[in-house]
């Protein structure tokens, strides 16, 4: 029998009580790891790009154009990561029934803004360098049988060229795809520089796309942007990419908060429960602890044995909880697949779980350990 074996044996004095406590600790830590990981996944997930983008458009109508000078000002706003712009081009390809949106954009900034749009680096490079270059979603190109190098004629309705010519011609340099085809918006993209030059209308864009680092701050940042232009000639209205993602971003913030409040409640309960259990275990064993001292166990050693019980219970329970979180991860991941979230255990969370287990063991174990240390043999034995 080792000292740890002795501590372990003492925990089995009332096996039902010990195992019930162990189970509660296990569940608490399993919950801790899963909920914290969930919060991390939701708040930090890259796939939530749509929740982290804002659209800045004209205040009174989205058709109103905005001056390009606003781009710089928006980029300065606290919390803004990147800004680019898009413009509604309209126009028809061969027949008005072949409708697809067409935007003049800043090539590099555009693909930087939309990580869910995938483009080969050399295609992006060619797109950026070719004045009349354009890229199309692969599906759209397939539909019309376009290939890289083709000239794509577009009949303008809103934007004739400076000389009155309505027939634009773009050089298709390649295609791009979407990481996830569902909900992707296929847009025919061409160079804004060419657009500005050909129309002779410089310094005007349709709207801005703004990327922010913290989706939960969307509301605050949107207000800050609109405040910039409130009294200008071109007041703006900023919203998250769509109402759904605004609501979603809100919920993401709430989820982190919710996870934390659930966990605080759970841990508070666990703390009380284990504290009561360990206190009872101590009270019941006062004569036994006195016997240990009689046998020559020092005050410090007896205190350590008592503390060891709480530590063992909490660390073992915590470890089991974390292990069961590992086991449950695939199950949770299965559910989250519907939300297109990758659910993987987050190691720092596992680490802090162990830290909390250790702290719990100490908080719960120190008071009975101190009491055990102070026990005087003769008096404790008389209580027998």
């Amino acid at each position, binding site marked *: *029998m080792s000292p740890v074996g*002795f501590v372990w044996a*003492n925990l089995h004095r009332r096996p039902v009580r010990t195992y019930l406590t162990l189970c509660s600790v296990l569940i608490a830590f399993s919950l801790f790891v899963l909920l914290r990981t969930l919060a991390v996944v939701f708040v930090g997930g890259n796939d939530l790009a749509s929740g982290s983008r804002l659209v800045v458009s004209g205040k009174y109508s989205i058709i109103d154009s905005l001056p390009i000078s606003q781009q710089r000002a928006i980029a300065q706003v606290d919390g803004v990561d990147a800004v680019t712009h898009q413009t509604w081009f309209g126009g028809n390809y061969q027949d008005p029934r072949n409708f697809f949106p067409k935007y003049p954009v800043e090539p590099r900034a555009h693909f930087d803004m939309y990580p869910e749009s995938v483009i080969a680096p050399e295609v992006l490079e060619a797109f950026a360098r070719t004045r009349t270059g354009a890229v199309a979603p692969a599906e759209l190109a397939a539909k019309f049988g376009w290939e890289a190098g083709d000239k794509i004629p577009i009949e303008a309705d809103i934007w004739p060229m400076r000389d009155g010519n309505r027939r634009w011609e773009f050089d298709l340099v390649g295609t791009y795809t979407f990481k996830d085809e569902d909900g992707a918006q296929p847009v025919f993209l061409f160079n804004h520089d060419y657009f500005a030059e050909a129309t002779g209308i410089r310094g005007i864009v349709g709207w801005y796309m703004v990327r922010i680092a913290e989706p939960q701050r969307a509301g605050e940042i949107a207000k800050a942007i609109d405040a910039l232009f409130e009294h200008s000639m071109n007041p703006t209205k900023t919203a998250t990419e769509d109402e759904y993602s605004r609501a979603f971003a809100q919920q993401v913030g709430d989820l982190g908060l919710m996870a934390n409040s659930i966990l605080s409640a759970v841990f508070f309960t666990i703390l009380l429960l284990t504290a009561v259990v360990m206190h009872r275990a101590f009270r019941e064993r006062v004569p*036994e602890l006195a*016997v240990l001292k*009689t046998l*020559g166990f*020092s*005050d410090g050693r007896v205190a350590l044995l008592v503390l060891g019980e709480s530590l063992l219970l909490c660390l073992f329970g915590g470890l089991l909880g974390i292990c069961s979180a590992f086991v449950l991860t695939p199950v949770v991941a299965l559910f989250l697949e519907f939300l297109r979230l990758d659910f993987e255990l987050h190691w720092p969370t596992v680490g802090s779980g162990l830290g909390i287990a250790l702290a719990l063991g100490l908080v719960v174990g120190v008071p009975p350990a101190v009491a055990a240390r102070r026990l005087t043999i003769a008096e404790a034995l008389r209580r027998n």
Partner: protein
Amino acid sequence: MESIIDLTDVHKSFVKGSEVVEVLKGIDLAIGKGEFVALMGPSGSGKTTLLNLVGGIDRATAGDVVVAGEDIGGLSSGDLAKWRAANIGFVFQFYNLLPVLNAERNVELPLLLTKLSAKERRRNAATALQVVGLADRARHKPGELSGGQQQRVAIARAIVADAPILVCDEPTGDLDRETADEILDLLDILSRDHGKTIVMVTHDPKAASHAKRVARLDKGRLTQEAA
């Protein structure tokens, strides 16, 4: 005869609320090496209190307590614990075994304080159980043993670390006549064959007759007589 226990003018008082109760009022007691002494006296006369002083689990209010060559009044609580581990084996009326451990592990317990390896600890525990005749009950927990068997385990625990002095507080107080006699025979053997010094508190004149000497405690003072 060389004495192993030497008490000189020992006083012990307890504070009960605002009252100070003097339980031992000047005890002089010398016990020789290998002696078997019975301590008798009415209930509440201070027998347990005196035994606790001899065993180093309580401290005298005044006077000298020299046991196994050590003036234990001067030891720190840590040193006193070490001293107890090395010199004293305790046997209580209600056995005071740890219910979660089986017989062998109860006996092994004092050896956790030594430098012995796990293997040596188990071997010594097994030997001690053999001495008390309980080798075949090594795996039983106290709850699965009779009172007499539990007291044997307690005695094995008291001798396993080879303490020269056994301090027994009414060791047969909870046992029937026949079982009590078996325990007393065991103490005889330990005294005679193993050279243990034994101080035993008892109410039972038949138990006291096993001792070579009987000390009587009454109203905080000691009177002695040969058995």
